[in-house]
């Protein structure tokens, strides 16, 4: 198939179809609405359906119910909409169900604005809902990576029976880039073969999917089960990318999503000025590349670690936790939909190097 030019939001919709996920529940919100617009005609073509819910609260609960059937289900939304889904996300995690959630982030807090932001890191990574649960959180930096990660997200959700959230700043949803899809379209998974999905009790014992455990021991057992699952995820699912990381780097930038691409431009230009800077781009924000951040940060020549985000500083708290005071960790960012420019990144680095 020839490469096509697609808007991130459309490509995310097509990637779900490629992953065999044809059950979609959503409510439109800028800058994510094109996913729903695309899927409202695309899903019927492949025998699927888009249910536009009355609100994001309803979307969350529809996902909970639909995921119980073992079919691949997903939603897409933007920051305030994801806030409304948090109760259901906690239930879904507690009930060990696979669901894929996409947050095309806009500026907040509150109704905020519609321009790109990365200020939902805490919400995604630190648990936006209540209780002892985690999400697998993945952050693409290009439209192609959004497609690849979307397909991966369904696999991970089923492998670990857990909700997976993809967070992309508004740019990921709104920009157009060239993109390719896997040649072979996947068949939907078969719930009949699973040992947990609610497929009708004919010929077998009833299965129960719930997140309510009144007996404290039963509830603790469920929390321990979740915790063991998250331990396995931390051991096996760390993903990140390095760019121009060498022994000569004086600064290590850590940035995710499209922010990392802005940093790459700055790094290329600084290189031509004789200043060596490397970039680490976490792709999995949970599990966070903890050991890898530490290992890269403590390397000999690194004078400072610089975290750059479209927020007032959220991921930087995880960076400081991982670096454990071995190197100074600095922060630079913008909010409200203002995107840091390569020039600002360069200026910040020059300021840090004195």
């Amino acid at each position, binding site marked *: 198939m020839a490469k096509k030019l697609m808007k991130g939001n459309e490509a995310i919709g097509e990637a779900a179809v490629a992953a065999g996920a044809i059950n979609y529940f959503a409510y439109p919100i800028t800058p994510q609405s094109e996913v729903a617009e695309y899927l409202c005609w695309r899903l019927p073509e492949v025998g699927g359906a888009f249910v536009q819910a009355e609100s994001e609260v309803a979307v969350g609960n529809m996902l909970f119910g639909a995921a119980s059937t073992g079919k691949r289900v997903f939603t897409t939304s933007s920051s305030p909409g994801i806030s409304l889904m948090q109760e259901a996300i906690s239930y879904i995690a507690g009930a060990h169900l696979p669901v894929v959630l996409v947050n095309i982030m806009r500026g907040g807090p509150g109704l905020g604005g*519609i*321009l790109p932001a990365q200020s939902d890191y805490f919400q995604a990574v630190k648990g936006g809902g209540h209780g002892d649960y985690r999400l697998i959180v993945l952050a693409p930096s290009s439209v192609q990576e959004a497609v690849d990660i979307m397909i991966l997200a369904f696999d991970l959700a089923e492998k670990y029976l857990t909700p997976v959230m993809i967070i992309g700043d*508004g740019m990921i949803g709104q*920009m157009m880039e*060239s993109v390719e899809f896997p040649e072979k379209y996947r068949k939907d998974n078969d719930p009949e073969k699973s040992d947990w999905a609610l497929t009708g009790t004919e010929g077998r014992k009833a299965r129960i999917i719930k997140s309510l455990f009144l007996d404290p021991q039963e509830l603790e057992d469920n929390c321990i089960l979740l915790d063991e699952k998250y331990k396995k995820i931390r051991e096996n699912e760390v993903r990140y990318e390095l760019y121009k990381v060498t022994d000569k780097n004086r600064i290590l930038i850590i940035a995710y999503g499209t922010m990392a691409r802005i940093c*790459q*431009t700055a790094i290329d230009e600084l290189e031509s000025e004789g200043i060596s800077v490397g970039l680490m781009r976490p792709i999995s924000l949970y599990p966070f590349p903890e050991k890898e951040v530490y290992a890269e940060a403590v390397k000999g020549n690194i004078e400072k670690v610089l975290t750059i985000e479209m927020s007032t500083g959220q991921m930087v708290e995880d960076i400081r936790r991982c670096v454990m005071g071995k190197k100074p960790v600095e922060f630079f960012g913008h909010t409200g939909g203002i*995107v840091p420019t390569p020039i600002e990144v360069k200026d910040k680095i020059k300021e840090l190097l004195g």
Partner: protein
Amino acid sequence: MADALSVRYPSTSKRIIAIVGGFGSGKTEISVNLAKYLAATEKSIVSIIDLDLVNPYFRSREVVDELEALGIKMIAPRGGQSYADLPILLPEVKGALEQRDGRLILDIGGDAQGTKAFGSLTDTIDISDYEMLMVLNSRRPQTDNPDGCIKIMERIELSARLKFTGLIANSHMIDETDEAVVIEGYNLARKVGEATGLPLVFLSAKSDVLSGMDTSLLECPILPMTRSMLKPWEEKK
């Protein structure tokens, strides 16, 4: 480079030029580049109307300062309203359409939905003095074949309540555009032209791609373009 092609620049004497097409066809880049070209070559005042009420990012209003410095008048919401998640249609738009002089380029939103706002204004247009040009990009999933293009054109015409007067071949993959993509788009536009009877008014492409091509095979005017809708990691050269 541009000089070598200049004899083949697009020419139309119509006052209103509406640039219409699917999402990602390149309407905004064409509108901005065409406005710059007309402003540089004509005495009349060139105005550009950002009528994209459906796309939240990458709209011609983002280059308002650059265009105004070239003497091009920009009609688009300003300040905070420029970023509002609201379909704002300024009263100046109708005024500009009703005027009788000056060139007017309309950068319309994508697809039939994006054309709706324009459709609410087309009864004020002098039907003897307009062009409505369909921008075709063969690398977009819905317009990679003549039938797909014609289907979307029919929907857009209904939404615009106005007939197309011509086609623009603008096949592109943004920075990954090469000669093969441009030629593929030219061939597609020719086929759509044969099926609809519409003329290929011009072909547009990035000037650096055009300069490396043998353009003598392209039997239509050519608009070389410089990208103005840049992503934050792409710096102006």
